[in-house]
C-alpha cells in the first residue's frame, strides 16, 4: 500500500506546531473542550492572551500556585467579567500601540448566562477581541446543571426528567445568532467533527479582529454531562451537523452564509438517540424537537445569501 506523504490541507491553517499544553491535563477522556482548547492556539498562535473564568476549562487554564498546565499568557477573570477584562487588556494594548490578540475562552454558562451582559456590551462597542464559547449546553463543571443553551427536553441535574418533568421546558438561547445580529464583525458556529471548517473560521477570526468583535460558538458535547460514550463525542458533533441541529454558518459584517450545507438532513432522532440526556423523550416530544430544529434552521437558512 502506498502511503500518502502530503499532509491534508488543514495543516496549512496551522500557525503553530508546538502544543502549549502539558501532555496530561485534567479534562475527561473524550472531552471536546480539550480538543477545542488545543486546536485554537494551533491556528491563532501561541502568542495570544487567553482570558477565561471558572468553567470546565479553568482546572487546566488556571495555574496552581506557581505551577501551570500551559504556556499561554492567561488572565483569569470572573464569570461576570470575561469580555470586559478582555476589553481592558485589548484597549491598553491599543493605547500603547502593541499588536496583541486577546481571546476569551469560556463555556456557555459564562457567555450565554452570567457573562452575557459584558459579552453583549463588548460586541456592541465592537471591541477588538475574539470570543470563543465552547458550548457544552450546561454548567458541566459544577455538575451538569442546565444553562440557557441547554436544549428543550434535555435532562440535567436541575431539570431532571421525572414523573412529571420531561427535562428542560424551554429551547436554547441562540448566542451566535444574537452576536451576529448585534453586528459583530464576524460571528460563526463551529464544531469538532468539521475541523477544516473550524480552522478556516479561526483563520478568518484572526483577520476580522482588526475590524472589530469576533464571536465563534463551538458545539462541544460533554461526555459526562450528556451521558455519551467517550469515543462518541466527535460522532455526536457530526450528527448534530447532519441533522441540522447545529448548522455551520458564518456572518461577516452581517452577511450570513452556510459554510457546510447538508443536502439531505437526517431526522433529529438519529442525533437524540446517541445522547442519554434525551433518552426519556417520547415520540411526541421527539417530534416537537424536530419542529424546533426545523424552525431554527429555517431562520438561519433565510438569513443566508444564496451563492
Amino acid at each position, binding site marked *: 500500500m502506498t502511503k500518502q506523504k502530503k499532509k491534508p490541507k488543514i495543516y496549512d491553517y496551522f500557525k503553530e506546531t508546538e502544543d502549549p499544553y502539558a501532555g496530561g491535563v485534567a479534562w475527561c477522556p473524550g472531552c471536546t473542550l480539550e480538543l477545542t482548547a488545543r486546536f485554537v492556539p494551533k491556528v491563532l498562535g501561541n502568542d495570544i492572551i487567553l482570558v477565561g473564568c471558572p468553567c470546565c476549562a479553568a482546572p487546566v487554564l*488556571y495555574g*496552581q500556585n506557581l505551577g501551570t498546565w500551559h*504556556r499561554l499568557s492567561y488572565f*483569569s*477573570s470572573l464569570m*461576570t467579567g470575561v469580555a470586559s477584562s478582555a476589553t*481592558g487588556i485589548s484597549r*491598553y494594548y491599543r*493605547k500603547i500601540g502593541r499588536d496583541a490578540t486577546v481571546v476569551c475562552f469560556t463555556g456557555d454558562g459564562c457567555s450565554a448566562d452570567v457573562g452575557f451582559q*459584558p459579552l453583549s456590551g463588548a460586541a456592541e462597542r465592537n471591541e477588538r477581541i475574539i470570543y470563543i464559547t465552547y458550548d457544552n449546553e450546561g454548567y458541566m463543571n459544577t455538575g451538569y446543571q442546565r444553562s440557557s443553551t441547554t436544549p428543550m427536553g434535555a435532562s440535567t441535574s436541575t431539570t431532571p426528567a421525572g414523573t412529571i418533568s420531561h427535562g428542560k421546558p424551554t429551547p436554547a438561547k441562540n448566542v451566535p445568532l444574537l452576536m451576529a445580529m448585534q453586528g459583530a464583525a464576524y460571528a460563526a458556529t463551529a464544531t469538532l467533527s468539521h475541523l477544516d471548517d473550524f480552522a478556516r473560521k479561526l483563520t478568518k477570526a484572526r483577520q476580522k479582529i482588526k475590524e472589530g468583535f469576533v464571536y465563534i460558538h463551538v458545539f462541544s458535547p460533554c461526555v459526562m454531562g450528556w451521558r455519551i460514550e467517550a469515543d462518541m463525542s466527535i460522532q455526536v458533533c457530526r450528527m448534530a451537523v447532519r441533522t441540522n441541529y447545529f448548522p455551520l454558518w458564518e456572518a461577516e459584517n452581517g452577511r450570513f452564509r452556510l459554510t457546510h450545507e447538508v443536502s439531505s438532513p437526517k431526522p433529529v432522532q438519529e442525533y437524540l438517540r446517541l445522547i442519554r440526556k434525551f433518552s426519556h423523550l417520547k415520540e411526541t416530544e421527539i417530534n416537537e424537537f424536530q419542529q424546533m430544529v426545523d424552525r431554527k434552521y429555517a431562520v438561519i437558512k433565510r438569513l443566508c445569501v444564496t451563492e
Partner: protein
Amino acid sequence: MIAQKGKKMVITGNATAAYGAMLCRPDVATSYPITPMSEVAEQLSAFRANGLMETEMVEVEGENSAMNVVAGASMAGGRTFTATSSWGLSFMYDAVQHAAGFRAPIVMVIANREAPGILAVSGGQQDIISVRDAGWIQIIVEEGQEILDTIIMAYRLAEDYDIQLPVMVNYDGFYLSYMATAIEIPEQTDVDHFLATLKEQPKRQVLEPGVALGCGTHGIEKGFVELRYRQCVAMERAAAKLDEIDREFGELFGRSYGGQIEEYRIDDADIVVVASGGVAGTAKVAVDTKREQGIKVGLIKLRLFRPFPRQRLVEALNGKKAIGVIDRSVGFGWDCGPMAMELRALTPEIGIVPILSYIDGLANLDITIPHIERAIDEVQSAALGKSYQEVTWIPLEE
C-alpha cells in the same frame, strides 16, 4: 523644586475628580453613570473628545464591567481610572475583590451615597462601609481641592512597588460632588514630575503576550495563605506610605492634608471628635466655638479608613478623656456606627475611655453645627464621669 501656580477654576467636586484623573494620564478609563458621580464620566469623555487626554475611554454597559475593564487593563500594565457610587459599587463587588487580590493598582473615585436596601438617591457613607473588607485602600476627603490632590497622591500610593493595591478616593456625594468651589489645577509638568518617581522603581509583573505567565493563579494551601498575607502586609505598609507621599506632595505643591489623619486642635485637647469627609469642615467650626466656651476639644479627620490608621490614632488619642465619633453609616450587628466600632478596637492601646457613637447625615440629612456642638457637650460630660448614651441617632432625637 516648587510647583508653578496652577490655574484656578470654579468647578464641582465631580469635575475636580475628572481633572485629577486627566492630570495623571491614565491609559484606560471607564465608568458607568450613576447619580451623583455621572459628571465624572461626562467630563472625562469631554476631555477625550477634545483631545485633552489620550486615554482609551470605554463606555461600558454596567459597573461590573467597568471594574473588570480596569482590572484587565491594569494587569496588562496600564494606569487606570474609574468612578462609581453606591449601587454601582455593589454591582461591581466581585470584581472589586478580584482587583485587590490581583494587586491591580487601580484608582477609583466614589461619590459616596447610601447603599441599596432602602431606596435613597442621597448621600451617606454606607457604600464604602460595605466594601471595607474588599482589600482596597480607602481614603476619604473633605473638600474639592483635596479630591484632586488625593487622586494624584493615590496613584503614587497604588503604583508604589511596595504597595500594588487599588485605592478608592471617597468624597461626599450630593454635597461635594455637586458643589462648585475654586480649585487650583496644577500644571501638567508638575504632576508628571510628582508621578515620575514611579518609573524609577522595579517594574511590577504584568501580562505579556507569548509569555507563559498566568494572572490570577489558584492559591493552593500555603500558596493561598502567602498571597493573603502579602496582601495584608502591603495594606499595612500603605499607612505610613501615605504620610510620606502627603509630605512630599506638600513640599512640591504647598498643600498637604496630614496623610492618614488630619489633627485639628488635638495637642492640648481633653476630648476628641472623630469625623470623616465633608462633615470635618463643619466640625472644625463647632470645635472653634466650643473652644471659645472653654471646652478643650479637638478634631480628628479620618482620611484613611483602610488600612485603619491605628498607629497615628493611638498617638493622637492617647490620654484623651472621651471620644465622640460621627458616622454617616450604620454598622449592622453592632448597634453603633462602623467607625465608632473601629475606634473601640483601639481600647487596649488608648485605655478605657467613653466612646460615643453618633449616627447622623444619613440620606443627605445635614450634619449641622448644633448637631456637632451637642455631641461635643455630651462627650465632655462623659469625660467628666457622668453617665452617657453610647449610641445616638441624631435625626431621630431632634
